[in-house]
């Protein structure tokens, strides 16, 4: 092999860089996301239940929001009948965020952890959060 030492040195440098994120974070546990549901509106609810079950919302909320958007905006159907038969008005800003008024501790908590950057907030106005909260 010609220039073996150059190639090996290059390989070592490459591996050092490529594996840097792994060994630099080794042994350090990143805090698990811990979304909070303790907003004033939710605390006053007798039955603390979103439009669908917790498990469904956790896994499918992005799909549900897309469907809600298309139903309300494109088809003009602004009422949603959940699987338990309850009817909710479709509005992200006026319905979802009425209960989930804690964007930082509800939305951003997991989105930051998963490094997803949904563009909801480019247009939709985030609820005002009290300064002393959290």
């Amino acid at each position, binding site marked *: 092999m010609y220039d073996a030492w150059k190639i090996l040195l290059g390989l070592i440098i490459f591996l050092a860089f490529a594996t840097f994120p792994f060994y630099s974070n080794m042994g350090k546990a990143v805090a698990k996301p811990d979304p909070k549901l303790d907003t004033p509106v939710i605390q006053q609810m007798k039955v603390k239940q979103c439009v669908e079950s917790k498990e469904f919302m956790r896994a499918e909320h992005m799909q549900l929001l897309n469907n809600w*958007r298309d139903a309300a905006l*494109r088809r*003009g*159907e602004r009422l*949603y*009948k*959940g699987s338990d038969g309850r009817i909710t008005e479709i509005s992200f*800003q006026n319905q979802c965020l009425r209960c989930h008024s804690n964007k930082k501790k509800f939305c951003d908590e997991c989105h930051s952890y998963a490094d997803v950057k949904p563009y909801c907030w480019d*247009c*939709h106005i985030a609820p005002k959060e009290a300064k002393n909260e959290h």
Partner: protein
Amino acid sequence: MSISRRDFLKLAGISSLGIGFSATDLLWENRAEAIDYMSSPKGLTAKRWAMVVDLRKFKTEEDYSRVIDICHHIHNVPDFGNLKDEVKWIWTDTFEHVFPFQKNEYLPEGVQEKKAVLFCNHCDNPPCVRVCPTQATFKRKDGIVAQDYHRCIGCRFCMAACPFGSRSFNWRDPRPFIKRLNPEFPTRTKGVVEKCNFCVERLAKGLKPACVEVSNGGLIFGDLSDPESEVRKILSKHYSLRRKAELGTRPSVFYIIGGDEDA
């Protein structure tokens, strides 16, 4: 083991049929899901929403600004303070500019100087919808030309297609330029086109457009397909104009000019 050309084609034919059938199955699944959504029974419905602008009722500056201000406030329309970046849902212009082919020197004095109230014409044959490459702008079943800002890619074909200048582009982030934010309505973002939406969000709640409510009878809103509606009654009694009707876009906004009190 080999397969003859004839047998291979037979097999391929049968398998493609199978694929076709499994696809129809998917269609059925989607249809079942749509039962979960419905329109509000409170909402106002029509086959074709239309507006009549009775310019005789617009006398002072305040008559115009009242209508514009309420719309721009509730829809979070920004004010950049310069014409180049201007974003507008309702605006005004001179008679000569609004009805270029109707102008002549001998028109009654009040008409020459009269400003017209302008908004999206919600055309029955909207050119903006035809050119939109993403179907971000579309015509609803009730005739309203709506805009889905989620889909808008900011190509501005619709602005080039609209003969009325009803569409504005957000060259900059509009948020900092909104004087009083209405927390119940979204803002827009940099890079999307926006325009009047005939207050679809209010119609869904059973309310007439905000501008109509504050216009003191200057703006009349109703269903053009219903002969008993207020707009049809007014149009059958008064001579009205539409902007650039010769272009064939069939605007749904009608203007009653009237130089005199009872013209």
